[in-house]
């Protein structure tokens, strides 16, 4: 690997990703820890842990069978259901919460846990599907000969479950760090405080960043507790399969059971996709006041008219962040995948920006950039790009590192023997061979940036994003406008994936 390239990438990542955290930690002093372990704090921490565990359990319960059935079996329409199953992950959880709130009387902790479980089940399904697809056909055929489909399931479960467990850890992290859903659920029913609220409240009440950092430490610890096993599982699962010798497994035939499987898959989609999206469409058309197509048109017209600038801002910032992350991800992803020593430490540093609560990351950006020398950047749209890239570059780096770990090292060795230097090997052999991982990582950054609210809310330029507008509109109760704007957001979030599907023949790869 070219050392100057790695040095530049490390420097950029250290500034945009780790800088806001370092500057916050530097503001800690002994007084910051006063009241940290009060009864209230511990109770909130327990509640947040329960929320995370509940959401992760629900995501696993739904995600494992959904992922396996849609990826590997002959369930009628499996490819379509599989693609639709990703939607809950792409939709801002706030939008899911809004749509479900109108359909059920569930409120409080149960509603929050269920919503976040539904929002994160696609993660488990994706990881499961990916693991199931990477099982060599010969291994599976041997099991099939030995004892049919059930023997296949028994042989493959130990291979698939670590991947699913890894995804469940990520689901836990998403759930415990989410601020918008508990905040929204609390606004329409009994108050349901979680730890992320506490961090925000701690900062808002005193503007004392040291206290906010101290308040966030238990949440960071909780997040790291979940992320460390996730990364370890991910590392173990990275197998060398990107080679001419790998034989993709055939579709498993379920016989009459495929109809039962179809019912399960459709039930999951009904809960996660059809019902919430149907509700949004219904609300955009007038909802309880009387649904008409004219109302739908009018609502979308209004949403486009009022939200156009916000949509443009969000798209610009998210695209900028994704593009900025690509070179960083290629260089650091490759370097971390090929590290012989210190790979665990490198992985820890890479995930740190997502391990800290979004709110803390946002405040850290204020502390880092809101100063005379960088005032122009801080007040501009570039600040949002820098914040989003810093926050989400980890995902792109991990996606590319996972791709690199799965690529046969002999591909690079052969190029090296041919005389190709480090930069040439990276740009001509590794990156093109992992093009779906590069674009997949960039798409992931784009999607997460489009739905980001919790960290960006602190930066002035981010007040013009569409999620910020949606967040405000939700609290003013403009149902048809909100529903239409939410559907537009979803459309633009899924747009890159749609474009890729239309122009490329290969799947996006963002998973180990």
């Amino acid at each position, binding site marked *: 690997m070219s050392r100057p390239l790695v040095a530049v990438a490390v420097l950029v990542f250290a500034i945009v990703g780790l800088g806001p955290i370092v500057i916050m930690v530097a503001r800690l002093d002994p007084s910051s820890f006063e009241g940290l372990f009060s009864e209230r704090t511990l109770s909130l921490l327990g509640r947040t842990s329960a929320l995370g565990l509940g959401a992760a359990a629900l995501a696993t319960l739904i995600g494992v069978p959904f992922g396996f059935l849609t990826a590997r079996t002959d369930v009628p329409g499996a490819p379509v259901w599989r693609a639709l199953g990703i939607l809950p992950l792409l939709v801002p959880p706030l939008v899911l919460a809004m749509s479900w709130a109108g359909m059920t009387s569930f409120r409080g902790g149960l509603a929050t846990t269920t919503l976040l479980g539904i929002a994160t089940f696609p993660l488990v399904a994706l990881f499961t599907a990916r693991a199931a697809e990477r099982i060599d056909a010969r291994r599976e055929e041997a099991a099939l000969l030995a004892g049919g489909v059930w023997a296949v399931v028994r042989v493959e479960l130990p291979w698939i479950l670590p991947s699913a467990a890894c995804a469940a850890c990520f689901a836990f992290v998403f759930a415990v760090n989410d601020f918008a859903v508990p905040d929204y659920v609390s606004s329409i029913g009994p108050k349901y405080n979680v730890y992320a609220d506490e961090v925000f409240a701690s900062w808002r009440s005193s503007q004392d960043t040291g206290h906010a950092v101290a308040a966030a430490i238990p949440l960071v610890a909780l997040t790291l507790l979940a992320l460390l096993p996730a990364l370890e599982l991910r590392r173990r699962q990275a197998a060398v399969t990107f080679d001419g010798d790998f034989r993709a497994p055939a579709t498993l035939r379920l016989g009459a059971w495929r109809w039962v499987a179809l019912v399960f898959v459709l039930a999951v989609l009904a809960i996660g996709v059809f019902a919430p999206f149907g509700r949004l469409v219904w609300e955009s058309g007038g909802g309880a006041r009387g649904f008409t197509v004219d109302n739908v048109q009018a609502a979308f017209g209004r949403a486009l008219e009022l939200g156009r600038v916000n949509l443009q801002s969000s798209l610009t910032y998210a695209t900028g962040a994704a593009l900025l992350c690509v070179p960083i991800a290629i260089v650091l992803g490759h370097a971390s995948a090929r590290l012989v020593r210190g790979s665990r430490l490198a992985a820890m540093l890479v995930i740190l920006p997502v391990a800290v609560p979004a709110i803390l990351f946002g405040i850290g950006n204020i502390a880092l950039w809101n100063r005379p020398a960088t005032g122009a950047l801080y007040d501009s749209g570039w600040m949002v790009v820098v914040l989003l890239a810093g926050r989400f570059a980890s995902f792109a780096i991990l996606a590319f590192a996972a791709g690199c770990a799965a690529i046969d090292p002999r*591909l690079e060795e052969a190029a*090296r*023997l*041919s*005389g190709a230097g480090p930069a040439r090997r990276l740009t001509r052999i590794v990156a093109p061979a992992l093009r779906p991982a590069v674009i997949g990582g960039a798409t992931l950054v784009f999607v997460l940036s489009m739905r980001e609210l919790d960290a960006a809310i602190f930066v002035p330029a981010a007040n013009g994003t569409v999620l910020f507008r949606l967040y405000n509109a939700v609290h003013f109760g403009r149902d048809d406008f909100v529903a239409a704007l939410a559907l537009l957001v979803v459309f633009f979030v899924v747009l890159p994936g749609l474009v890729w599907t239309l122009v490329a023949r290969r799947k996006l790869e963002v998973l180990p």
Partner: protein
Amino acid sequence: MTAVVVSGARVEAGGRTILGPIDVSIEPRTWTTIVGRSGAGKTTFLRLIAGLARPTAGRVALFGEPVSDGARILVPPERRGVGLVFQGGGAGLWPHMSVARTLDFVLSCARVPSHERAARVAQLIEAVELGPCRDRRPGELSGGEAQRLSLARALANRPRLLLLDEPLGPLDAELRASMVERVRVLHREFGLTTIQVTHDPHEVEHVTDRTLRLDAGTIVSPAG
């Protein structure tokens, strides 16, 4: 000048010796066959010579030039003039490059001018009889075709030393025989020094000048 001199070389991984100490000399333009059981260190021996496995002790010299001394790599793999055909059917072939692009890429790494490359690619493709497959990617090649592409790639930059790591493993008997014959012709034509690892010494006994047996990381017979 001796083609390969390995003196007291050792390779360790995870605190365990996987190769060595090895002492061997190989004369130029000869064909040496390395045999031994799985795990004997045959592949590591080739990787040591190629510079892909880092030694922990000993010396390696290629054509009179020291390439490693102790744990120090003096000449990186890409400057050793070595071609390597990896173990397995299409192993190490670049999945996103067609046959022609693979060879063109290798030549471009050696800074062969672009106007010469097309002719060289055509020659190589002809030498390994991959004409009808020139625009196919490795995933679209049969086992024999993939192996021939591996061979063409290894020979593209006119190496002095050709390393073959069980190149015939996945092929059927007929293809093995034709592949051995093809490599034999190229070995003579290019004046190569060839070192081949195999499980089955009989398949190359008519072309081999010398056979070395590796066991538990050391050469047991005949001594180098």
